């Protein structure tokens, strides 16, 4: 594997990590922590159905599904109702990011060639859809027709 190919791998890994700081995605991941608690509460409360929960929240079961799917965002009024319905309190704790190591993507040894092929095949879509890191980064162009030995 030459340096250009290695740089290309590093670029896609950086891009994947850059996606994690996307604000909407961060919000969805934060919401998923609440959803996880809600799903567990539904189970321990006699496998409460979404229909029953929706009735208690004075909303529809499709709205609950949209929350679970991340198509709608929870609001504080709903969270307050959930606390009352399940007789619980959501405990809030702020933890410094410095205490949480980032989870880096990486790809092992021989399979990097496969990944390079896939990146080159789909590179337009990849770089169009994924936000680029905010820091300066050299991008080594690889011809779409360039053959890379597997």
């Amino acid at each position, binding site marked *: 594997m030459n340096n250009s190919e290695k740089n290309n791998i590093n670029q896609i890994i950086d891009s*994947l990590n850059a*996606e*994690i700081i*996307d604000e*909407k*995605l961060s919000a*969805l*991941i934060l919401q*998923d*922590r609440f*959803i*996880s608690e809600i*799903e*567990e509460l539904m189970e321990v409360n006699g496998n409460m159905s979404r229909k029953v929960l929706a009735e208690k929240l004075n909303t529809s079961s499709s709205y609950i*599904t949209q929350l*679970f*799917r*991340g*198509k709608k965002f929870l609001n504080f009024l709903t969270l307050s109702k959930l606390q009352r319905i399940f007789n619980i309190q959501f405990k809030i704790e702020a933890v410094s990011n410095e205490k*949480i*190591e*980032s*989870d*880096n*993507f*990486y*790809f*092992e040894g021989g*399979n990097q060639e*496969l*990944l390079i092929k*896939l990146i080159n*095949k*789909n590179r337009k*879509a*990849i770089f169009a*859809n*994924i936000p680029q890191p905010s820091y300066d980064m050299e991008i080594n162009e690889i011809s779409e027709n360039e053959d890379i030995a597997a």
Partner: protein
Amino acid sequence: MKNVTKITESTNKRVVIYVDTKEANNIFPFLFEGNNMQTFLRFKSLVFENGRNSELYRKEDISEQHKNTYSIRFTSGKNQNDRIYCLEKHDGKRNIILAKLHENKRSQHVNKQIKSILKNISIKNYE
């Protein structure tokens, strides 16, 4: 593990995500389509924190033949019903293998084709 490529693991090393190397040709390009990467990164965060969300990642082991099979549900794409079927293996760590992409799933019902996919995943000898 043989036949699989490690993609990522949690900071505490307790959860590891792999892809079936032969299926990577289908799975990686799919992940870069539309909002699929967003769904995948939500799934990653969810399993790393041992969270649960059955609209995102759901157990599919409908019988003994389909043991330890799960699906990541991609509901924000054009088809809104795409799946990546997974196998979980536990050896002190929670190993999740992205085993089979299934696009254009037409209903919530688990039909014969899906059962066959799950059965194949379940008996596949990932080492």
